[in-house]
C-alpha cells in the first residue's frame, strides 16, 4: 500500500516539476488504466460464484451504505452552509 501512495506522490512531484510541459493525452491514459482495471475486476467478480449468486443482496447493501454516506454528508454540508456561507 505504501508503494501505491509513494508512486502517486512521485507523480505529483514530477507533474509539478514539469508543469509547463504539455502532458500528452494524460487523461486518455488514466481512463484507459481505469477501464482496464474495472474490466479485470469484472472478470474477478464474474468468476466468483459466491458473488454472482448474491447480486441482489450486494446491490441492496451498497444502496443502504450509500444512503447513510449521502445523508451524513448532506447534514454536515447544510451546517457548514448555514453558518459560514449563507450570508454571502
Amino acid at each position: 500500500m505504501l508503494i501505491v501512495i509513494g508512486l502517486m506522490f512521485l507523480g505529483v512531484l514530477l507533474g509539478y516539476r514539469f508543469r509547463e510541459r504539455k502532458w500528452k493525452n494524460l487523461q486518455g491514459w488514466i481512463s484507459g488504466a481505469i477501464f482496464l482495471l474495472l474490466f479485470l475486476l469484472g472478470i474477478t467478480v464474474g468468476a466468483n460464484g459466491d458473488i454472482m449468486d448474491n447480486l441482489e443482496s450486494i446491490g441492496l447493501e451498497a444502496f443502504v451504505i450509500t444512503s447513510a454516506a449521502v445523508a451524513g454528508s448532506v447534514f454536515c454540508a447544510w451546517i457548514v452552509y448555514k453558518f459560514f456561507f449563507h450570508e454571502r
Partner: protein
Amino acid sequence: MKGSLLIALCFLGGVMLGRFVDLPAIFLGEELTLYVLYALMFLVGISIGSDQKTLSALKQQNWRIFLVPMATWVGTFGGMVLISLVLGHRSLTDYLAVGAGFGYYSLSAVFITQYKGAELGTIALVSNIIRELFALLAAPLLVKYFGRLAPISVGGATTADTTLPVITKYSGKEFVVISVVHGVLVDLSVPFWVSLFCAL
C-alpha cells in the same frame, strides 16, 4: 455520463467473460491488477501535480473553503459509523473503507478488492456509482432543501470533473472554485483513507 456508461460496460464485459469463459490464470490473479493500479496512481499523481488551475484557485480562497471537504469527510464517516451500528454484520472499517470511496468508484473498488476481497470490492463499486449518480440526479433538490454546498458534498471526489457541470448549474457559478478544490482534495484523500481503513 458517457464515462460512467463506458465504465459500466467494461465492468459488465469482464463479468460476462469471467462467468462464462475459462480464462488463463493471469487474468484471475491479483498481480496484473496490482501493476495496472501502480501505473494508474502514478498517472493520477502527474495529473494533480501538473494542474495549474487548482493551485491558483486554491490561493484565491480563504480558510472557509476547507470546511467543505471537512463536512464531506466527517459527514460520510459519521454516516458509516451509524450504518455499522444498524446493519452490523461487517466490521466498522469495512463500512468506512466503502464510504471512503467518496464516489471515486473505480479506484476505491480496485483498492478494496485488492485488500478486502472481491465481495466488498463490488459493494464499493456499486455504492460509489450510486453516490455519483445521486449527485448528478438530485442536485437541484439538494440545493433547494439543504443549501448550495449539499450537491458538492454528495458529489465527493467527483466534483472537480464529472459532477462539476451539474453543480455549476444548480449551486451557481460562484461555487465552481469551491467545487473544484473540494473535488481535488477529496479525490486525493481517497487512496489515503481507503488504505488506512483496509490496514486497520
